[in-house]
């Protein structure tokens, strides 16, 4: 029998983070060639850097997967108003824990990426918006920024040039909606983080203080440094067309070795990730379902067949194990790779309980600005919780679906979709379990999830 080769990680962003002698101090970063790309950037024209980022094809790592170079292109440079750069470090999508590793273990990589980006867009000031639960992360960043300032890598007259850009760490206070870029901006202005309506409030035009603003994820900004190092063209050869670079996949739930793994986009399939990289399922269990890109993405059933056509016209016929791990793979089977958070569920999971758990999250996190989302997310929580309390009704599956369908597309921000996609997909894929709850009442599930 030929033993299949385990796919090998290719670490670019996390190249140094887990090396035994590596620390988050400036001296260590400098020893590893740190800030050399910032020096290179300052010898270039700002717009040349933007061109490289565009050429690289790098897509945002926060969840939406929008090309970062394009985002930068949208920046309104003619308004005469100051330009701001914000790093979205609010990492809160359930199942995602990659930015944590970068900020705690390699903060200077983020600062270097940010200062290159700030110079490229000619930002007047830059902010890192970090979730408040990362107490130590915020302290590490503050200290790293102080170190970088003392050596002129950020702050006043960077590298002795005429360009200055102050970098400020700003802590949130436990609200998921602050990860939505316009909600984040409201929060940074000292207000409740109610997202703004687009149009007209595209951050690149009317962002922080109604000034042009770029909001990028931690991993995306780190990539800027590597794009400069390789050149946009070379970078675009990593991974696959339209899916360039590496991604840090976060695997959680019921596998032997949950964790974060950096691979070239498309270098492995879901099956290779679960069985070869993560050591497979827990003893004696079988796979039931996978949520491929954070809890907002649509759930995939283990015994489903996925057929269709890829963008390039090739037809596919996949089982869950065959789905390629890149941006387009999970999207082509009706879900998304989102923030890269893969949540694995085995046969011990009661799907109504799992649904109730997710619905409790969205009911807690809705900002309350739009009626369909504020009311609907709470109703969905109440219905699924009631079902788990032995009060399930025959019509519940349809009722849930009807509520979810009335949220989607009727809200200011994408939270409405994030809250309704789980319910829509759970009902579509596991309707039998929802109906069985009504028929057989509550059979105590082996694992409590709500």
């Amino acid at each position, binding site marked *: 029998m030929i033993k299949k080769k385990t796919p090998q990680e290719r670490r670019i962003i996390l190249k140094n983070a887990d090396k*035994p002698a*590596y*620390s*988050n*101090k400036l001296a*260590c970063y400098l020893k590893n060639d740190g800030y050399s790309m910032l020096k290179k950037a300052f010898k270039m024209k700002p717009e040349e850097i933007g061109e490289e980022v565009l050429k690289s094809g790098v897509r945002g790592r926060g969840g939406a997967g929008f090309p970062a170079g394009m985002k930068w292109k949208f920046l309104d440079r003619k308004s005469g108003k100051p330009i701001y750069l914000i790093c979205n470090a609010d*990492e*809160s*999508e*359930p*199942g*995602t*824990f990659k*930015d*944590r590793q970068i900020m*705690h*273990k390699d903060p200077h990589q983020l600062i270097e990426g940010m200062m290159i980006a700030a110079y490229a867009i000619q930002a007047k*000031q830059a902010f890192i918006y970090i979730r*408040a*639960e*990362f107490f*130590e992360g915020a*302290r*590490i960043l503050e*200290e790293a920024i102080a170190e970088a300032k003392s050596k002129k890598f950020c702050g006043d007259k960077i590298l002795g040039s005429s360009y200055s850009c102050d970098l400020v760490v*700003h*802590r*949130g*206070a*436990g*609200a*998921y909606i602050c990860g939505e870029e316009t909600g984040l901006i409201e*929060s*940074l*202005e*000292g*207000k*409740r*983080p109610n997202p703004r309506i687009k149009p007209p409030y595209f951050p690149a035009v009317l962002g922080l*203080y109604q000034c042009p603003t770029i909001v990028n994820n931690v991993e995306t900004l780190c990539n800027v440094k590597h794009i400069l190092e390789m050149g946009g063209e070379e970078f675009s050869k990593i991974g696959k067309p339209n899916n360039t670079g590496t991604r840090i996949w*976060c*695997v*959680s*739930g*019921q596998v032997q070795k*949950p*964790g*974060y793994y950096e691979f070239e986009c498309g270098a492995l399939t879901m099956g290779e990730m679960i069985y070869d990289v993560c050591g497979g399922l827990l003893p004696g269990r079988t796979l039931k379902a996978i949520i491929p890109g954070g*809890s907002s993405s649509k759930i995939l059933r283990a015994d489903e067949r996925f057929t269709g056509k890829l963008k390039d016209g090739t037809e596919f016929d996949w089982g869950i194990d065959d789905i390629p791990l890149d941006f387009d793979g999970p999207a082509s089977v009706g879900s998304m790779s989102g923030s890269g*958070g893969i*949540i694995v569920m085995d046969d011990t999971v009661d799907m109504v309980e799992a649904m109730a*758990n*997710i619905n*409790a*999250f969205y009911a*807690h996190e809705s*900002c309350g600005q739009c009626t369909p989302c504020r009311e609907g997310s709470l109703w969905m929580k109440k219905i699924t919780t009631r079902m788990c309390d032995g009060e399930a009704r025959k019509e519940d599956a349809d009722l849930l679906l009807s509520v979810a369908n009335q949220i989607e597309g009727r809200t200011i921000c994408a939270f409405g979709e994030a809250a309704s996609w789980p319910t829509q997909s759970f009902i579509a894929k596991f309707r039998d379990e929802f109906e069985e709850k009504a028929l057989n009442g509550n059979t105590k599930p082996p694992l*409590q*999830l*709500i």
Partner: protein
Amino acid sequence: MELSEETLSRIEDLIPKYPEKRSAALMVIHLVQDELGAISDDACSWIAEKLEIEPINIKELITFYPMLRETPWGKKHVRVCRTLPCALRGSYGTCKVLEEKLGVKEGHVREDGEFSIEFMECLADCGEGPVVMVGEETFENIEGKNAEKFADLLIQEKLNTSKDFVSYENSLVTQSPVSKTTKKK
């Protein structure tokens, strides 16, 4: 309302970092809450005056953001992640054990003010669930039997000296040869 010299000077340093004073609101609230445990009406008014806005502009933040408080948590505040990835590893069981051992229900403060427990939404450490935070430190893989031992050590105030439960933050330091200088105070 009384604030220490240190907090006052940190607030003074903080405000000019922002192009508009109001932007400093969350950060100032954090500093005040770190010292006083909660934001009273007096504190609201004081912060508002400092930032040249109305007290309601602070109150609306305190009543929105989950981590801002109108009444303080216990001396040792225990946060348990309840979101799906941690729940799949048993965090509901972990919370039950902690409730029983610490003698306080989730969402409440024990009568003597010693402990409080709070169910949190995703703490972004899902690979090592169930995740529990005590104060500002994150502890990983606290499930089943582990949870009982964890609670015992917490009660005996031996958690920080135990080799069985090294917090995420402390393991960062032991991995690398640098001293832990980032800790405040």
